[in-house]
């Protein structure tokens, strides 16, 4: 395993170039400047799954898994590029230390296996936000997300949620920051009758389950707040100790969409989260996007 990522500058090279190229005030568009922000002409008349995904492997895309840790040696996971355990300092700032614990539950490994299965060449980083007790789990979850956004990951998989309203505002700010920094947050929808976050925020991609045994099948939901449905029932998954299990839950549907996002991102790195969500919508199976 390589060291934890540094400032993420290398992976953001293409983004910086895009920002420099624009060199425009963010809040208005001067007269005649429309040409300067002309979008790539490669957009087809109709966005298809072939255009979005064919030939994509996830190469060059950095995916962060905020979860219970990842067992890196699992055959379904392979080499991962970094693993940190998140804690928070007295000032609330996240502290990321190299994580030697592996996976404290199995769930993070399961997510990593799903993402690796869909996007075999993506880079996977584990940010462990579990294990320090329940009481401190909210600040650590926030710290983990803050760290992931600061690192500029391309995709962050969050198969978790909080019901604490005191964290909602900060989570919302972080989700928006990620959205504007081109980091795609993919979060599990909560299928219980309580208010929870961050999946309800429109700046994240929220995921519920469908029961079809097809990892590439996903639907756009015309009745949000849950926006997409992916495979989440009876999924074969990597688990701790090199084992595999079969399991069900929205938390397993989420890494399916994360993996698909990694594929799209690797083929079309210029896409913003808004554009990528649009591509998911246009290529969803209930849109006829597979044709």
């Amino acid at each position, binding site marked *: 395993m390589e060291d934890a990522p540094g400032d993420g500058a290398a992976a953001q090279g293409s983004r910086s170039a895009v920002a420099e190229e624009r060199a425009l005030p963010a809040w208005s568009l001067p007269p005649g400047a429309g040409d300067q922000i002309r979008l790539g002409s490669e957009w087809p008349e109709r966005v298809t799954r072939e255009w979005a995904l064919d030939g994509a492997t996830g190469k060059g895309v950095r995916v962060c898994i905020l979860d219970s840790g990842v067992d890196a040696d699992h055959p379904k996971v392979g080499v991962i590029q970094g693993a940190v355990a998140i804690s928070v300092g007295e000032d609330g700032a996240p502290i990321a230390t190299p994580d030697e614990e592996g996976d404290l539950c199995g769930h993070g490994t399961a997510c990593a296996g799903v993402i690796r299965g869909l996007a075999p060449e993506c880079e996977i980083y584990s940010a462990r936000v579990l294990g320090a*007790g329940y009481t401190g789990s909210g600040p650590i979850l926030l710290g983990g997300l803050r760290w992931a956004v600061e690192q500029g990951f391309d995709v962050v998989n969050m198969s978790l949620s909080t019901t604490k309203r005191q964290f909602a505002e900060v989570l919302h700010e972080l989700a928006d920051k990620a959205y504007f920094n081109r980091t795609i947050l993919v979060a599990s929808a*909560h299928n*219980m009758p309580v208010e929870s976050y961050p999946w309800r925020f429109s700046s994240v991609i929220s995921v519920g389950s469908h029961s079809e045994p097809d990892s590439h099948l996903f639907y756009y939901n015309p009745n949000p707040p849950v926006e997409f449905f992916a495979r989440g029932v009876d999924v074969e998954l990597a688990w701790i*100790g090199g084992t595999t299990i079969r399991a069900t839950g929205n938390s397993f549907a989420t890494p399916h969409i994360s993996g698909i996002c990694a594929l799209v991102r690797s083929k079309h790195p210029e896409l913003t989260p808004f554009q990528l969500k649009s591509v998911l919508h246009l290529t969803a199976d209930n849109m006829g996007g597979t044709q």
Partner: protein
Amino acid sequence: MSEDGLRAAVAAGVIGAEAAYGSLLRSIVEVARAIFSAKRSSIFLLDEETDELVFEALAGEEEQGLIGTRIPSSTGIVGWTLVTRQPLVIEDLTQDPRHSREVAEKTGYVPKGIMSVPLLVEERALGVLQVLDRPQRPGFSLQEMELLGLFANQAAIALDLLQRSRRAKAALEEGGGDVAVVARLAAALDELTEDRREQALALLNALEDVLKQ
């Protein structure tokens, strides 16, 4: 209502909360087990003071001796469920050596399959309900998942109400023996037949008059 009246009313409500609490926990696991035709169901509740999960009740054929066992609040499947607030269902856990060993040590039973769901009330997570070894059926349905969530929600609401009563009872008892006496009186009054209650109320009213003089 005056503060005293409120206290008496609260007291009448909380007497018996302890016994009802145990009954409710057993009822939750028994119903959960019955709904899914499972071999066993168990409930872990969060002890916020020690930040641990406490094994509180189980339904199944096994002995109840390990009730009260404490486990870390954020590791393993039960800890993951609590912290992430996400339900999950796992079908074949026996392949997971760590889980098997840890769970066997703590609860005396190694499940093959596990349904794990958080008990949530508004912002708070009270604990985790687990249903173990329901019959293996091909094609686990999303309807079952929804049912699990709905039942956990109902269980959590009931638990929350009784936990409030227990806290109120503790507060009353901490408030001094005199208040506890009033609480017991109020509860006893509540259980009387109508004619005897009238007589008792007359007596209490007379006592109140005397006390106010």
